[in-house]
């Protein structure tokens, strides 16, 4: 694409480049690098129901609203009131435009049965009508829808052909930018081969059904004097009108950010080396049914909204109301973000459109809403050839990367350990891959989260058990013991056992301590007794010594008394 842009202006010294008239149809202007050739007719061909008329009306209405170009719609198929009703659903008010002289709708009715041809004729009447309509409001844009109706309404196709050639010359002479629509024909672009006369720009619309899913596609077949995107591009017709989505692969040249944003779960942030996801990275959350993928996604969105960032949630399995209710049950209040205008849900069944169309729709929503984070829940809802799904996701990831949007994709994986081809393909696009698994043991299932990869940061290699509590996801440290990883009640039981063992050890020590204490008390008492015994013995001995002295004194006194009595004078 970028090559073509540069090729468009090969040199400024040449004649002034082709002037272009923006169609106002997002995407079509991008892939034609500015719009349709100004002052020239463009042929838009396609089978019935391709949206030719809507393209035409959008071209005129947008031209009037955005560029102030009045327009003429010459309808050969629908009456003005039918047309007005048909496009009212797109928010186009034709009556108002007509009243303000911004639009003229001229319904040309041709009934072959009512017209008798008697001699040569020409289409000057049509020219006069067209010329009059153009001149009345000074129209810059003209749509002829579907000019081939002339062939059905009038005889003498040789005359018609030469008149059509003159008609296109007339349009050029008038200097109006015109869209001429035509039915797709067998083996050629249009049923009556009018592509022969319109040589400036030819756009082909297509409505293809593959596997019961319809995808509208657009291709610029030729654009004289300008380069253009050559691929088929999907386009949408919905309440927002016509949107063409040139899906440009951004390549791998996008800016990277080293800013980190929270995953919305504290324990998960802690497992990531940089405490969150890099802004602009693509995160894949895979897991089997009921592992809480959506909850993890909602936590991420909740955190983003809480930071005041805009988020876009693509729900492919649940309606917005259902997601909000379910997340409410785990304490994540998404409704308040929705009310605050920070969160937008886009819910659609995957089978509603083809992949291309989904991608196109998501691309448009991203462009319109300009979110800083998106969630696609889940990507596994897209069934189809792996190559196609993969290409779609690659482009979505590219779109997000080029805009610095952090994208979280959830994917339902089979319960087995083996990785499916699809998962392998998708995972290589992702910067961070979080696997949620159900560990089955001891008659129960427990949820375990592990980080399979995280580009550009170190991360925990541990399996971490988590619980969906009524206040969000809570990470629980996993018991890693000699018997491996234990989770759930097994972990609780093991922890209880360990606590018991510890307790009894403590008890034993206390008991031993008491016994020792008792013994010490006993020993000390014995010591005290012995001491007392010794002391009493000592006292005895002292007492005996004193007695002796008394006795000796007494004996001496006795003896002196006795000698006195004997008269030993």
């Amino acid at each position: 694409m970028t090559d073509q842009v540069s090729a468009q202006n090969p040199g400024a010294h040449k004649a002034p480049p082709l002037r272009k008239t923006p169609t106002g149809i997002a995407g079509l202007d991008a892939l034609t690098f500015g719009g349709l050739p100004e002052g020239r007719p463009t042929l838009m061909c396609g089978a019935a129901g391709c949206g030719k008329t809507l393209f035409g009306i959008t071209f005129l209405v947008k031209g009037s609203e955005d560029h102030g170009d009045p327009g003429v719609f010459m309808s050969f198929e629908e009456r003005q009131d039918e047309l007005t009703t048909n496009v009212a659903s797109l928010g186009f008010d034709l009556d108002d435009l007509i009243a303000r002289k911004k639009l003229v709708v001229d319904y040309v009715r041709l009934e072959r049965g009512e017209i008798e041809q008697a001699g040569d004729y020409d289409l000057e009447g049509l020219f006069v009508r067209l010329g009059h309509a153009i001149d009345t409001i000074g129209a810059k844009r003209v749509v002829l829808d579907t000019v081939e109706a002339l062939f059905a309404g009038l005889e003498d196709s040789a005359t018609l052909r030469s008149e059509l050639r003159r008609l296109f010359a007339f349009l050029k002479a008038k200097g109006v930018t015109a869209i001429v629509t035509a039915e797709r024909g067998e083996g050629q672009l249009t049923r009556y081969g009018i592509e022969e006369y319109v040589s400036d720009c030819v756009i082909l619309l297509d409505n293809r059904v593959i596997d019961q899913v319809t995808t509208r596609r657009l291709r610029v077949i030729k654009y004289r004097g300008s380069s253009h995107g050559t691929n088929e591009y999907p386009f949408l017709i919905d309440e927002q009108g016509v949107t063409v989505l040139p899906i440009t692969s951004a390549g791998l040249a996008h800016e990277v950010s080293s800013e980190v944003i929270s995953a919305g779960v504290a324990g998960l942030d802690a497992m990531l080396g940089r405490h969150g996801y890099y802004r602009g990275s693509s995160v894949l959350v895979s897991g089997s049914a009921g592992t809480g993928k959506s909850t993890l996604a909602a936590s991420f969105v909740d955190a983003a909204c809480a930071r005041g960032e805009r988020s876009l949630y693509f729900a492919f399995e649940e309606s917005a109301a259902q997601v909000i209710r379910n997340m409410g049950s785990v304490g994540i209040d998404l409704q308040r973000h929705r009310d605050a205008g920070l969160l937008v849900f886009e819910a659609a069944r995957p089978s509603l459109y083809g992949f291309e169309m989904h991608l196109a729709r998501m691309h448009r929503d991203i462009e319109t809403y300009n979110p800083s984070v998106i969630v696609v829940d889940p990507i596994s809802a897209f069934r189809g050839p792996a190559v196609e799904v993969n290409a779609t996701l690659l482009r979505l990831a590219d779109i997000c990367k080029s805009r610095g949007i952090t994208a979280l994709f959830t994917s339902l994986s089979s319960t087995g350990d083996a990785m499916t081809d699809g998962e392998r393909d998708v995972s290589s696009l992702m910067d961070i891959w979080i696997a949620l698994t159900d560990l089955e043991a001891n008659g129960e299932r427990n949820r375990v989260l592990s980080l399979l990869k995280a580009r550009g940061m170190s991360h925990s290699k541990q399996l971490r058990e988590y619980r969906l509590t009524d206040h969000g996801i809570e990470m629980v440290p996993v018991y890693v013991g000699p018997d491996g990883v234990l989770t759930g009640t097994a972990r609780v039981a093991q922890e209880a056992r360990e606590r018991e063992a510890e307790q009894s050890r403590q008890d034993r020590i206390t008991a031993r301590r008491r016994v020792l204490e008792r013994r010490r008390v006993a020993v000390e008492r014995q010591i005290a007794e012995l001491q007392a015994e010794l002391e009493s013995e000592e006292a005895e001995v002292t007492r005996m010594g004193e007695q002796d002295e008394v006795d000796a004194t007494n004996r001496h006194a006795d003896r002196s008394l006795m000698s006195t009595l004997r008269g030993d004078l």
Partner: protein
Amino acid sequence: MSAAHDVPLDDDGQVHLRLYVAGQTPKSLAAIANLKRLCEEHLAGRYTIEVVDLQVTPQLAAGDQIVAVPTLIRRLPPPLRRVIGDLSNAERVLVGLDMIPRSSAT
């Protein structure tokens, strides 16, 4: 041509014709001449012809759903009939104006 007497006519028998042309082109002039001649032959005295030049009054083209010119419209008697071309094929003109039965036209 006696067929002209079979024409279902209005009460007063008047046939009101309007011929749309765009400028004084050879085709326009031929159509006007052809029409006058046919009317004189088949509707002498009970027809009116109004010639509208769209180059002068282009706003009238849409009202009568004019695409090709020249276009001859029989406004009265109803129903409205239209014939396109320079009216050089008299039989087709008469068929177109319901003046002879369709089946006899080849």
